[in-house]
């Protein structure tokens, strides 16, 4: 996107006033999306996002700017304006830039951008037909397929020899939303499986038929669901997307962006017990082709499998370059950003609670009265206090070890510190689920994951009174 010579000039302009690190992040992101409404193509679009972000660090201070004008004049002007926020003398001049090499984790042969929109439309039509066919009370069905190919170039320097990284991120995601109506009762269900993979994954490996049918069935089942009770209850959380509990309740509070400034409940927790000893957790950006995986992070560091919690003890944070300086630790491949408009910071990739020993059916069998949450809409957390919330999109009552009636309008709230200690059963059925996580550096694709777990007590909010 820019020449090596221009990169050299821009880096040196950025370092003119005593910056000790400069970085140029260029991006050309082509995204395509088709969307069908009740089986008919409603929209088919192609968008190009294009631009460059420049960052300069001086110790633990940073300046960042971006522009979609990648001309020499524009980039030098931006670098110079940013540099003038620092006052100091040049520490070094970048004289050469070397090309960096790294392992390709997300190998893709059949690129999604090479697949004609017509083929994606046919695929979505089959999905839509299955979802709509579940029941005549499905009054609206939106099925879409979105994919993007992001060409990235990073140029950075913190000495006389800089580095140049070229990377490609490719992702695709199927979206299914079903709306069911019975009189005035309107309910909806959503599914959104995604992968950093080629077209054959979506057509051959993904169980799209079952996903389509399940989404329609969920919307229909919600029509007869009763209101969720409110109070403090034992909650069993199904594997896969249920891992959003760890993501919200604990994951964000283990990001160095929160811990380095002492703005997290886990700021000083390394080496301390923060969870029940049966809990171990990882953030692994290296799982081939997974939704949250990357070859390198947004700063050029290779991604890693970082263990965050080992047998209940906090052993590491997710650390980006800037917050690594604050913590006195090395970055560990977790610096991410939505696009060039965002300054990168530590973020999760594929974050999960490791598998335990219990059979999921035993966990339910051993629960006398509680809630069984099988799917979530999502949630949020305030890392400083650790208070989190997440809403269940599919949940049931457990009585005497049996899963019984479905409930709707179920929200779980609590404190991350408490919930990790209150996990009293961990299943052996680890699975991952896909989502988009929003935080300081924008929306990034993440996998959440866990086996089936049980939390001895969580505050449950609903409109259904006391659980009996």
């Amino acid at each position, binding site marked *: 996107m820019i020449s090596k010579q221009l990169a050299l000039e821009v880096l040196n302009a950025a370092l003119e006033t005593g910056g000790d690190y400069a970085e140029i992040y260029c991006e050309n992101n082509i995204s395509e999306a088709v969307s069908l409404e009740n089986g008919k193509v409603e929209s088919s679009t192609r*968008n190009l996002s294009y631009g460059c972000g420049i960052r300069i660090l001086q110790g633990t201070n940073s300046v960042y700017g971006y522009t979609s004008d990648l001309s020499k004049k524009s980039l030098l002007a931006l670098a110079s304006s940013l540099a003038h926020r620092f006052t100091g003398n040049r520490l070094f001049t970048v004289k050469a830039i070397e090309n960096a090499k790294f392992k390709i984790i997300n190998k893709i042969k059949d690129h999604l951008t090479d697949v004609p929109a017509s083929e994606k439309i046919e695929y979505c039509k089959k999905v839509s037909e299955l979802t709509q066919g579940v029941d005549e009370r499905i009054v609206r069905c939106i099925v879409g397929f979105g994919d993007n190919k992001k060409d990235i170039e990073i140029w950075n320097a913190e000495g006389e020899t800089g580095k140049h990284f070229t990377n490609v991120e490719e992702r695709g995601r199927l979206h299914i939303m079903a709306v069911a109506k019975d009189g005035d009762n309107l309910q909806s269900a959503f599914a959104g499986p995604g992968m950093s993979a080629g077209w054959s994954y979506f057509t051959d490996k993904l169980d799209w038929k079952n996903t389509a049918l399940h989404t329609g069935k969920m919307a229909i089942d919600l029509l007869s669901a009763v209101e969720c009770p409110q109070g403090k209850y034992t909650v069993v959380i199904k594997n896969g997307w249920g891992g959003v509990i760890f993501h919200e309740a604990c994951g964000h509070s283990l990001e160095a962006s929160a811990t380095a400034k002492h703005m997290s409940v886990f700021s000083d927790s390394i080496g301390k017990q923060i969870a029940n000893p049966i809990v171990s957790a990882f953030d692994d950006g290296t799982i081939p082709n997974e939704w949250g995986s990357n070859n390198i992070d947004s700063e050029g560091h290779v991604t890693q499998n970082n263990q965050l919690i080992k047998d209940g003890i906090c052993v590491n944070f997710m650390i980006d370059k800037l917050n690594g300086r604050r913590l006195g630790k090395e970055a560990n491949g977790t610096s991410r950003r939505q696009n060039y408009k965002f300054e990168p910071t530590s973020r999760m990739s594929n974050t999960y609670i490791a598998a335990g020993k219990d059979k999921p059916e035993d966990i339910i069998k051993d629960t006398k009265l509680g809630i069984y949450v099988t799917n979530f809409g999502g949630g949020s957390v305030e890392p400083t206090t650790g208070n989190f919330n997440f809403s269940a999109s599919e949940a049931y009552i457990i009585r005497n070890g049996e899963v019984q009636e479905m409930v709707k309008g179920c*929200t779980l709230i609590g404190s991350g510190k408490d919930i990790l200690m209150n996990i009293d059963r961990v299943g052996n059925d680890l699975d991952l689920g896909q989502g988009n996580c929003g935080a300081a550096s924008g929306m990034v694709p993440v996998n959440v994951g866990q086996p089936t777990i049980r939390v001895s007590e969580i505050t449950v*909010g609903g409109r259904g009174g006391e659980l009996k």
Partner: protein
Amino acid sequence: MNPNKFFEAAKKAGISASQLHISGSSSTSISLFHHEIDSYSIENDQTMVASGIYDGKFGSCSTEKFDNSAIDFLVAGIIQSASNSEKSDSEGIFEGSPKYFKKNCFSKELSDTPIEKKISLIKDIEDKLFAYGDPISDVQTVTYAESSSFSEFYNSFGLKLKNKKNHFVLYAGVVATKGEEVKTNFDYDFGTDISKFDADAFSKKLCEGAIAKFGGTQCDAGKYPTLLRKNVFADLLGYFLDANSADEVQRNSSFLIGKEGAKVASSKVNIEEIPLLKGPMFTYFDGEGVAKINRKIVDKGVLTTHFYNRETAKKAGKETTGNARLAGGKMGVGCSTVTVKPSKKSQAELIADVKEGVYITEVAGLGTGMNANSGDFSCQAEGFMIRDGKLAEPLDLITLSGNVLKMLNDVKGFDNEYRMMLGGVGCADALIKGMNIGGK
């Protein structure tokens, strides 16, 4: 880019009529952390969204790359988009409204104020926050962000509309600590005139807000008369405004199906859409180039109109309300700034008769805790008990659940502490007859 060159290329390629929306912004954002500029950013955005009619169907495409390849990219994108579309009821490209109500919303004074003065303002705020002392233990951030944006709309019929505006946002967060108990509080202000900003009052309110949360517990679960702070009421009202989209109604996805002209709220509720309000949110044309006007949405509890674009208006046999919004490649519907009429009562007068109730000051997780189709919601909340007509002990980690339409029908009244929120809803605190609170 010269729009006429795009229109010529589009016409040559068989696109019968087209429109081009060019928008962009330049922003500067400065954050302090522990007396140093911790983050400084300069942002320059620009986007072109082109739409057109090809073979009788609507197509759209966008790019941020403003070079020589842009015209070909946009023209090819429109053709591909329209060719794949199976929607045959497009209203085409709008020629233009007879009159537009343009206002100058660009403050030269704000733009000309030196950046050092703005930095010194946030330094002053940070000093005041630290000076508050115990139990304020830390200042998370003090941020100043200023944005100047432009929006230009052109179409192949010769319509040219331009809008330019700027504003600032000041944002700060503090941490209060007492033993093991940690509380945070955030607040913001925005506008076009920083000379009116009262740093003393802002800092004091922010610190007091954090300290007031100490000792927060869960109340007994149950149904309570509930005072919703204006920010909470505004968040919930946002879902009502989304549901009022004629597009959602016509697609069977709204809890306002069949409610146009009917009573949807208590008679205390009066809502007006005010896109022409002078200031940072001003807008005088919609995504189709239709002139916007201020209009009543809810009049004494009665829903006077849905929000329409030209296509949904035609389906309903109505006129467009100037609410077209082009997003995701299709011409959808969206609303602009909205105001809810406050009353003359103070907060104390409004809750004077509440024997035992709850004051909700913050909610979290509404985005996922809301069923936008039915209006049912459940989310995390915090606030205070109301006892014998007065605010009492703090509440923490409780849940608030209810239904948006029921909430509006149960509005007993508003107080007089009106505020326009950054999200584009202006309102005061609202007292609701009864809402479900989850706690102990």
